[in-house]
């Protein structure tokens, strides 16, 4: 028993140590790497946040939602409207002036981010009532519909979102500390939730809804919990994204965003947070490397002109290949644990 406790403490120290290492690494990057590298790392962190929270509803609770872009949009717009200075807003809203309380509100980044997440969570709460009346394919379609609704609303509420013109001049708040700080916090919260009794109940619902209900689990409430937590973190990620790119418009939150996230969680392994983290980073970097395929190139005698959007084709093919040959993704439902890692090192030692 004491041995078990001691080992538990070791693992916890390992976890804290690795987080310290991560932030030390970020410190080095911030001071010595170029702008481009920093930007990709920021985007990676935002995708980690989104993918991990998205995996909670799709992989753990098994409810195939296609609407994370809705929550990101709500989070991004809410946060942006709170951080842009009133003077900037006046410049921005040229067709119709911005409505009253929003025109004067001006908050620092952290409260704005939290309010953005809260608004997204609120939308998730309201959406849960119609969405969880249906299951499976129907649920996917309903959430897809909501994703579109949010985009269309953002396009047409001129006096709040500035319509298709979008919001410009957002302060560039997002840096490595914000993006990775939120990512670490999200991973912490979501993995803890998954490993708790509530996470077990969500997995039970994924495995067999009827049996879960017969075992006393309130199915609707647990689906709702997964959905709202997902929405909260997706909203925060949206806020971070907005303050990284500093210009947002409804087109940023189209279905392509959801598609990207779907590729990430499927390649990582539905239900595995470790897989989502690894895949989010790989896909972000792959997206940068694959810019090459969109440039004009010559293959032997053929001259291919640059085709924008070629990267999406590559991702789609990747998704198809994963679905056919490795449906489990990188990690299946397995998770990284220090126990496994130390065991791995020990067997390595013995072999060496």
């Amino acid at each position, binding site marked *: 028993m004491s041995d078990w406790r001691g080992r538990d403490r070791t693992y916890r120290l390992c976890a804290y140590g690795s987080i310290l290492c991560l932030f030390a690494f970020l410190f080095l990057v911030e001071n010595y790497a170029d702008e481009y590298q920093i930007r990709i790392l920021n985007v990676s962190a935002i995708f980690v946040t989104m993918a991990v929270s998205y995996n909670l509803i799709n992989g753990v609770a098994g409810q195939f939602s296609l609407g994370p872009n809705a929550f990101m949009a709500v989070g991004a717009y809410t946060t942006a409207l709170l951080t842009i200075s009133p003077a900037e807003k006046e410049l921005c809203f040229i067709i119709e002036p911005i409505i009253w309380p929003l025109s004067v509100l001006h908050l620092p980044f952290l409260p704005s981010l939290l309010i953005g997440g809260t608004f997204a969570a609120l939308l998730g709460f309201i959406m849960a009532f119609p969405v969880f009346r249906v299951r499976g394919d129907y649920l996917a379609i309903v959430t897809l519909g909501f994703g579109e609704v949010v985009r269309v609303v953002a396009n047409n509420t001129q006096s709040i979102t500035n319509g298709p013109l979008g919001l410009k001049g957002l302060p560039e708040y997002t840096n490595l500390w914000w993006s990775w700080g939120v990512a670490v916090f999200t991973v912490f*919260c979501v993995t*803890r*939730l998954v490993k*708790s*009794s*509530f996470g*077990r*109940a969500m*997995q*039970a619902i994924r*495995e*067999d809804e*009827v*049996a*879960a*209900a*017969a*075992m*006393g*689990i*309130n*199915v609707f409430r647990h689906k709702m*919990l997964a959905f709202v*937590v997902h929405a909260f973190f997706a909203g925060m990620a949206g806020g971070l994204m907005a303050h990284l790119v500093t210009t947002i418009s409804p087109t940023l939150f189209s279905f392509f965003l959801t598609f990207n996230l779907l590729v990430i969680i499927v390649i990582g392994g539905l239900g595995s947070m470790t897989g989502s983290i690894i895949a989010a980073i790989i896909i972000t970097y792959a997206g940068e490397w694959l810019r090459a395929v969109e440039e004009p190139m010559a293959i032997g005698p053929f001259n291919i002109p640059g085709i924008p959007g070629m990267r999406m084709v590559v991702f789609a093919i990747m998704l198809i290949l994963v679905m056919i040959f490795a449906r489990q993704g990188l990690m299946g*439902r397995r998770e990284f644990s220090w126990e496994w890692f130390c065991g791995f090192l020990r067997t390595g030692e013995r072999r060496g």
Partner: protein
Amino acid sequence: MSFFKVEHLTMKFGGLMAVSDFSLTTKEGDLIGLIGPNGAGKTTVFNMITGRLLPTEGKIYFRGEDITGTPSHIINARGIARTFQNIRLFNDLTVLENVVIGYHGRLHSSFLEAIFRLPRYKSEEKKMRSMARELLAEVQLDNVADEKAGTLAYGQQRKLEIARALATNPRLLLLDEPVAGMNPRETGDMMDFINSIHEAYGLAIILIEHDMRFVMGLCEHLVVLDHGVTIATGTPSEIQNHPQVIEAYLGEPEGA
């Protein structure tokens, strides 16, 4: 106030009368068998009792409360648990986790307490796990506690499903064909097992079964359904010689 009472339960699926005018009264600690040919409506009765189906007509009372049309998880919390004809375990979870889930409905901590592992949640989680281990030891599944439920042998899966139902602390247990597909020796083991939990927990049990020897040996009281209609009730010996029951199972005698 009766312990468990079903009155005039009727279930129609469109034009099909799955169950008609089914009534049953159970005392605490009864062991009742529900038998009948395939398609007689036995599982439909279970589905109505556990809130999976809303009966077309009729009332279900449990410990003095009308539970007709109550959602499944609330019926479970009131003290009715069940198993399924086609085993429905959480296959990708471990044996232990399957049982621990049975306690989740009675968790007091909120999800925030769970995320931040606050003391109340920690002690509840510890308690749930130790109760689950005890329960698994009682049903002799403790040696496979960390295996995935889907990898267990068939007989063990049946047992685990019953253990999982017991974890929800029921007063009435509904078993849907607990020995379907078992050989005579396994059937005998299951009979002893059901007898032992019946005594140990003082539970009322209603079970559906096709295996006549099993039902006759185990139950004190039998109800026979055929095409949704209750055709006979009584002790095993009464049922064995009941002309309508023989007819339902074997067909009409020649020349009658």
